[in-house]
């Protein structure tokens, strides 16, 4: 394997034994290690906030892949964040059933309240707002996810309650 840039080499560290064991459990599910790449990307993202260059290098080393192998997968999937996102990543569904029931109003309301447009993060790093495609919440539209948590049948009032309930 080619040597890594020094600053990345220094940053690649093992995770805690628990996280390493979690990663091992994923790898053990498949006859080919590489299959575990997406589950591991989610774990690295959870631990580091997003998938940065050091995280990519870590996965490459862990799965015996090249850096390029990992990048090409990381850049394909929209749920893999290659840039930092806020502590709370608000993802509002924009696809048809949600649009029919007022998704735009929901995003306008959040934008106004947080002072950010879709694609932006608040200066304190607390919130990122994104439009996303169909979340499979069409029957409970309009809907959003914050991180992995679903919030459905949204109204501006309900959005306020949800945002108020989030911890600092």
């Amino acid at each position: 394997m080619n040597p890594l840039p020094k600053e990345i080499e220094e940053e690649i560290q093992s995770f805690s034994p628990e996280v390493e064991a979690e990663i091992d459990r994923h790898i053990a599910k498949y006859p080919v290690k590489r299959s575990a790449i997406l589950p591991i990307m989610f774990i690295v993202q959870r631990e580091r906030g997003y998938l940065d260059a050091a995280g990519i290098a870590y996965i490459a080393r862990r799965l015996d892949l090249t850096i390029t192998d990992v990048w090409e997968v990381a850049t394909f999937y929209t749920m893999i964040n290659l840039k930092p996102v806020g502590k709370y990543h608000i993802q509002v569904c924009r696809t048809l059933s949600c649009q029919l029931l007022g998704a735009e109003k929901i995003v306008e309301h959040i934008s106004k309240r947080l002072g950010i447009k879709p694609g932006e993060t608040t200066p304190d790093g607390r919130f990122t707002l994104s439009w996303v495609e169909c979340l499979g919440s069409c029957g409970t539209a309009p809907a959003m996810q914050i991180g992995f948590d679903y919030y459905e049948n949204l109204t501006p009032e309900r959005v306020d309650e949800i945002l108020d309930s989030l911890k600092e």
Partner: protein
Amino acid sequence: MRIEAIGCEPLLLARFNLENSRSLETYRRHGGYEALRKALTTMSPDDVINEVKKSALRGRGGAGFPTGTKWSFVPKDSPKPKYVVCNADESEPGTFKDRYLMERDPHMLIEGMLIAAYALGARTAYCYTRGEYKYLIDIMDQAIEEARAAGLVGERILGTDFSCEVYTHTGAGAYICGEETALLNSLEGLRGHPRMKPPFPAVAGLYGCPTVVNNVETLCAVPWIIMHGGDAYRSLGTEKSGGTKLWSVSGHVKYPGVYELPMGYDDMEKFIMEDCGGIPNGRKLKAVIPGGSSVYIMRAEDIIGKDVRMDYEGLVAAGSMVGSGGFIVMDDTVDIFESTKNLIEFYKHESCGWCTPCREGTDWLVKAFKRIARGEGRPEDAQLLLDLCDNIEGKSFCPLGDAAAWPIQSAIKRFPEDFKRHLLPLAEQERVPAVA
């Protein structure tokens, strides 16, 4: 949101309202894993495949391919390991049935996967679930562990010679991975690009080994079929479309939800206007997309008073398709140009970039739709949009291209008035009344 069976005894929804419906204990108390026991102890793998063939069960993910036939394509003499893969990448806009099957009754899916694995000689089964459904992956993992502890997953299941591992796997936000060969690439840790067919997955699928990929709802129907027989299942529906089907209903209806109907339910008007409570706020029905966003849009006039039968043949006769059974209902406030624009933006975002017609075509379509939406439409744009669709449909590497073209083609053909208005010079657009 409602979840209920109409016109039949609940089959897939049978345990949905029980307390702790997702626990192994509840599942077993209501007959769970008895079909697996029956298959393992009284039936040969071929018997299982034949029973599924007799049932006329067809793939519930969208393509509607006969499940038993798909299973029979797996070569029996292959020395390679075989795989069962459950497609839980539910991402077709308007579709959310699999989500509730996994949320409320995960053991039904695990049992279906195990029976399929037994029929096909597989010792490993994966459940590929879309990344957004993380909470369902957690539910499935918990159910698998429960089943393993009870000797239902792993070595020598129920004391027989049959051993099978069941694992969950996560996607990461790519619609294309619902296409079975793209799903397999993704499961192998690659970009989710579709593969050339043939070879079909039944011959060379996961890791180049014989593989069957089935939708969640399809696999969930299998335990009932094995328990009660293929003929009994078929008789719930029609000759060619056996059993029951879940329909996800969203948009402008009073009671959106997941409804289980017998195949051949008669008829679509009654379903929308009565079973789903009709159109709220005193509005009128304008359009329905009945099978997930990829199928042809239907006009109200082609539904009301037309006795549209809800099965594969009935919907084709009515000018659309069953697809994934995702009903998107639109009232007369909706501008079909706008709703179509919303969908083509979805397809552009989800085009995987592998083939030129789909990658470039969906991009050009979005550009044209955006220009028209800015008020820069020209009368010849309707033909331009159709030409762009024609350069995608049937010419893309996988069905995503067709899925992007069909909603536009059918919308322009069936709602020309909504497009014409946008294609007038801006000053004139204001003189033509917009939709109600």
